[in-house]
């Protein structure tokens, strides 16, 4: 079954075309990696899919679990199971992390017609997920990302992902700025959530993360289009040879 199908997607940011005819299909249960040089449109793709204001599709189609993704607003996409792990998670001073998570979990449950979790049920879920993700419990009682270290912020993203149990997780350069321990912790969290019903789109600059999260497919994004796809060995080749040879091969910048 197709989880995500992108056809001939064109998108602009502040009037400038960044995605120029992107095609991509991710099936349920698959992990795809998207790699590419700076400015190739990686972050634009993740923001466009998650519905950030200012990111506009000008042509093409995006079908998500058979539905028209671009017709949904940001919070509907989230409630339908699309999760974005941010590259730079923002701090929200004064808003308790646990309170925020409970609001998010229950908003999504409400959208799906499920009863909201009460405090006891919610805490049980927190305890269960803390066994999957290596996150200091005290961070849950602090304000969202406020004063967190880089690694703590990323672990917090993965913990939110575990709590929300998305269908499609987009990890936007989650590995950037992480030391090896944090990287492993993040990868363990992602791997723990792998299942035949879930898919992931791992956007990364380096192949290092892919040693821990082994992808089914690797795509190279250059100049707003997927210019080459392959299996895990493509990531290793990119690591060795850089992006220059692909850019030459496709004649695009």
């Amino acid at each position, binding site marked *: 079954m197709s989880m995500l199908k992108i056809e001939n997607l064109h998108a602009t940011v502040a009037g400038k075309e960044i995605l120029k005819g992107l095609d991509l299909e991710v099936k349920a249960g698959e992990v795809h990696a998207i790699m590419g040089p700076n400015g190739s449109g990686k972050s634009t793709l993740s923001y466009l899919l*998650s*519905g*950030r*204001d200012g990111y506009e599709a000008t042509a093409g189609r995006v079908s998500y679990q058979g539905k028209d993704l671009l017709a949904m*607003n*940001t*919070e509907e*996409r*989230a*409630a339908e199971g699309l*999760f*974005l792990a*941010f590259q730079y*998670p*923002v701090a*929200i*001073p*004064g*808003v308790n992390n646990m309170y*925020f998570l409970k*609001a*998010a979990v229950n*908003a*999504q449950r409400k*959208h799906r017609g499920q009863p909201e979790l009460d405090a006891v049920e919610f805490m049980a879920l927190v305890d269960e997920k803390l066994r999957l993700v290596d996150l200091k419990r005290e961070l849950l009682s602090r*304000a969202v990302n406020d004063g967190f270290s880089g690694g703590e912020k990323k672990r917090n993203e993965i913990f*939110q992902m575990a709590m*929300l149990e998305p269908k499609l997780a987009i990890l936007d350069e989650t590995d950037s700025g992480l030391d090896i321990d944090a990287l492993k912790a993040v990868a363990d969290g992602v791997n723990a959530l792998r299942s035949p019903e879930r898919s992931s789109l791992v956007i990364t600059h380096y192949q290092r993360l892919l040693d821990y999260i082994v992808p089914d497919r690797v795509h190279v994004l250059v100049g707003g289009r997927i210019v080459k796809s392959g299996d895990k060995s493509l990531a290793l080749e990119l690591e060795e040879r850089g992006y220059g040879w692909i850019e030459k091969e496709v004649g695009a910048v």
Partner: protein
Amino acid sequence: MSNEQIERVTKKEYEWGFVTPIDSDIIPKGLNEEVIRMISTKKQEPDWLLDYRLKAFRHWLGLTEPVWPKVHYPPVDFQEISYYAAPKTDKDRPKSLDEVDPELLATYEKLGIPLHERAALAGVVGAESGGGEGLSGIAVDAVFDSVSVATTYKDKLSALGIVFCSFSEAVKEHPELVRKYLGTVVPHTDNFYAALNAAVFSDGSFVYVPKGVRCPMELSTYFRINASGTGQFERTLLVADEGAYVSYLEGCTAPQRDENQLHAAVVELIAMERAEIKYSTVQNWYPGDAEGRGGIYNFVTKRGLCAGARSKISWTQVETGSAITWKYPSCVLKGDDSVGEFYSVALTNNFQQADTGTKMIHLGKRTKSTIVSKGISAGRGQNSYRGLVRIARQAEGARNYSQCDSLLMGPDCGAHTFPYIEVKNTSSQVEHEATTSKISEDQLFYLRQRGISEEDAVNMIVNGFCKEVFRELPMEFAVEAQKLLEVSLEGAVG
């Protein structure tokens, strides 16, 4: 945030805009000595109080309205206001709650303020603590237009020697206390509106907590303007004797009208040695409509005197209502080691204007003050913080910490800060921090990406911004304040 986002979240209607159809005794419009004598006669006041009013009135005639606040409004015609309005039934003042006009009780029900003592226990406290008898409820004094209509839990409180009653009643029952303290913190010469209030004040609350008594329940007053063409001029006087403690809360609402109505109150607090007074306000006067028509002019003088050593006065205010707010709850820290605090959230939406802040006057040695001010502006709202920290020569080792944060929602609103600092000695320490920020698109997107609706996301961010102030409110009212903020912001996201 984008403009449409602001629009969507900050448009919400005022819920308390109804009028109670009640027979009122309203005196003719206008202000002169005759009117003041009439008010005094209606209230059967002693001569000394009439003299006080007349002295204030004569002084007021020589004053002009202050123009320094950063607010703009057409001049107020003081002859076009009626200075006294009372529900008719007050002629034979109700002896107990059972005799209060059912329309009035219904009004307070509608406002969610229980005037029945049992209801107060079951409804407000019971929900949190599982009920239970005893002195753990909230005692309420309800002021409707110019008179107090009911005060609850009076008997239970008086068993502890605590006086909690309407100001008028205090004048009759405890004239020696009223006479001793009235005007000692805010003299009738203090400013234009304080002088006006001293001349025409109608009712308000009076509290006296005797030596060493810790008041076991929250005391609160709810003010309601109902009659049209009137002003409300209440006077509140609160005295905590040596070692006493009291927590007091006031709330206020008014009907939705096209006219502007004037509210000019005076609040005086006095804390003796080691006494502590916590005074919280949830101000929700009608703010006017989305085009800026109508709304209350809220010109209020509030001041507390830390008279004794190691006394403490703490002001917490949540200001979401009124067309114009002009208000500076202040502390005069006279006793050595006394403490003054001011925690404020002020929100202006649509065409609301607020010029609010505090004055901390350090006179005693090692006196300490804390100021935390959170201003939120949306729509075309203009929000100013104005504060004075004055440390006198003799106030050795005094300390002040001030923090003023402003949050802007949308391109048409404004935030302004006017901090004044005067330090006359070298052993004191003053810190001032200020920030101005916008609700960031990053934060909003982050919350929405987790499935939280745009409106809930804005409320969450704003409540987070105000948290340091909300946690100073008594628990029941912190919830109320949060809800109020949400309602006041509805339609305003930016």
